[in-house]
C-alpha cells in the first residue's frame, strides 16, 4: 500500500478527480494548503505599503492505493497538473503500513480496491 501525496494547482484538481473516478479510484482527500517553491510570491500593495506573500495557495491530494495502482494515479496527476510553468507542484509516494475501513472494520489492501463504475454511488 502506498500513499500518493500531490501538491497541485487548483485548476488541475477537477480533471484529475474526474479521470480517477473513471478509472475506479473515487477515494481521495484534499486540503487547501499554502506553500512556497520556485514560483514567485504575490505582492500586495495597500495604502502605500507592500507585503509580499511567498506562500501560494495549492491543493494537496492524498490518495492511498495498492502498490500496483500507484503508477496509474501518478500518471493521471502528472498528465493533468502539468502546464510546464514553475508552480505546477510535486508528487510524493510513501509507504503505508495498514488500512482500515471504518464502516465494516475490515483491514488490509482489500479496503483499497479499485471500484467498478456501478459500485460508485453518485
Amino acid at each position, binding site marked *: 500500500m502506498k500513499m500518493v501525496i500531490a501538491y497541485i494547482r487548483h485548476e488541475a484538481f477537477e480533471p484529475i478527480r474526474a479521470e480517477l473516478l473513471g478509472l475506479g479510484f473515487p477515494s481521495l482527500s484534499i486540503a487547501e494548503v499554502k506553500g512556497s517553491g520556485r514560483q514567485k510570491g504575490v505582492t500586495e500593495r*495597500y495604502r*502605500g*505599503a*507592500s*507585503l509580499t506573500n511567498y506562500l501560494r495557495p495549492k491543493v494537496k491530494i492524498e490518495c492511498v492505493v495498492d502498490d500496483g495502482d500507484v503508477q496509474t494515479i501518478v500518471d493521471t496527476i502528472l498528465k493533468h497538473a502539468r502546464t510546464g510553468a514553475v508552480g505546477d507542484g510535486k508528487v510524493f509516494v510513501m509507504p503505508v503500513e495498514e488500512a482500515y475501513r471504518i464502516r465494516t472494520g475490515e483491514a488490509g489492501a482489500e479496503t483499497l480496491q479499485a471500484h467498478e463504475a456501478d459500485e460508485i454511488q453518485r
Partner: protein
Amino acid sequence: MLPIPRTARGGAIAADAVPTPAATGGPDHHRRARRARRHRIAGVAGVAAAATLLVPGSALAVDPTTVDQSTLLESVVGLADEVNLFWLIFGTALVFFMQVGFLGLELGFSRGKSVGAGVAKILVNLSVASIAWWAVGFGVAFGGNGDDGVGSTLIGSSGFFFNNGTDLAGTSSGATEATTFIFQFTFAAVSLAIVWGATLERIKFIAYPIFGFVFVALIYPLVVHAGWGGGIFNDIGPGHLDFAGSTLVHLTGATAALAAAIVLGPRLGKYGPDGKPRAIPGHSMPIFGIGVLVLWLGWFGFNGASTGSTDGSGFSHVIAVTNLAAAAGVAGAAITSKLVLKSFDVGMIGNGAIAGLVAITAPAGFVELWTAPIIGLVGGVVVVLGVLAFDRLKIDDPVGATSAHGLAGIWGTLVTAVFASPRLVDEAQQGLWYGGSFDLMLTQIVSVLITIAFVFAASYAVFKIIDLTVGLRVSEEQELAGLDISEHGMYGYPEQFIPEAELIGSAK
C-alpha cells in the same frame, strides 16, 4: 442671496424665526446678523426666555378667515421656525448615521481578529459621548461667551446637565435649545469617532470611555466654544470662517488621533527590520466602502443642516457644493494613487472621498459651486500623500484619520480664505480670489494653529496619564491574539477562529 448664518449654527435658530432686517438680507445683513448672533449665544438660559416669546404655540391652530394680521404673521413665523427645527433634527439623524460610516470604515481597515472590538467601541463611545455632552460639554461649548454676563470667550458657563422645558433643576431651556443640544451632540460624537481610527488593533478598551469623556466634556467643547460658541476665534482679525467644522470638528478629532497614535506606537509588524512600513491589510474592503458611502450621505446633513435653517434654501447650495467636493476628492485620490503608488488603491480612493468632504466642510456655506471641485480635488491629493508621509514618520494610523480629517481639514480651513464669496460672507471676510485682504487667511491660520496646539497638548497629556495609570496598550500577546478574544473574550468572526469540529461539539 443665500442668507446662510455664519458661525453660531445652533444659536441662530431662535432669532431666525423673526423676520428682522438682519435675517432678510440687505447690504448690511452679515454685519448685523453677526452682532445679533453674538447676542443670541449669550447663555442658554437667556436664549430660552426669548424663544418662548417668539414661538407662540402651534402655528396651525389658526383660522385664517377670522384671524387678524398680526396673529397670522405670528403663526407663519411659528411655522417657519418649526420647519427650521425639523431641518436641524433631520440633519441630526443624518449626522448620527455617520457613526455607521465610521464603524464600516474602521472595521473594514481592521483585521478580522479585532472587529468585535470596533463594534463595542462605537457603542460605548456614543454612550459616553451622550452623557458627557449632556452633563458638561454642551455647557462648555454653548453656555455663553460673556456678552450677557454668562460665560466668557474662553469657556461657556451655563447649560450643564441640560434640562429641557423646566426650571426645576439644571438650566431651563426651550425646544430650540433642545434642537441645538442634540444636533451639536452628533458633531461631538463624530469628532470623537475620528480619534479612534488611528488607535485600531492595539488600544485597551478602557481607554475609550476615559478619553471619550474628557474629550466630549472638555477638549472638543472648548474648541467649539472658540468658534461656534462665540469665543476667541471670532475676535481674531475679521473672525474665522468654519462653516461646519473642518477645523472645529475634524481637525480637532484628527489632532487627538495623532496624539493617540504617537503615545500608542505602531502595531506589531507594521514596520519591518529595515524600518520600512509593511502593509497590514484590513479585512474587508466592501465593509470599508459601505462606511465611506454612509459618511458621504451623512455629510449632506453635516454640512447641509449646518445652515441652521431652511431660509432661502441655502442648504441646497451647501449640499450641492458638498457632493461636488466629495466627487473631486475621489478623483484626486485615484489619480494620485495611480501616479505615486502605481495602482488604484481602494482604501486611498475611499479616503479621497472623505478628504474631499472634510475639505469642503469649512467653506461649504461660503463658497460658490465652481470652487468645490478644486477644493475636493486637492483634498484627495493631500490625503494620499499624507498617508504615505505619516507612514514614513512611523505614525501608524490604520485608517488615515490624521490625513483625511487633519490635513484635509487644514486645507479646507485655509482655502476658505481664498474662495469665500462676497455674496455669502461679510465684506471683511471676502476671499483672496475676490480681492479680499490677507487678514482672513491669517485668521484661519491662527485658528488652525491654536486648535492643533491646544488639542494636541491636552490629548497627549490625557493619553499619557491613561498610559501611566491603567495602561493604554494591550500586551504583545493580546495584540497578536487580536482585541476580540483578548479584550472581549469572544471573536467578531468566530467561524474563522474556532474549528468547525470544536464548534459542533460531541454528537453523543
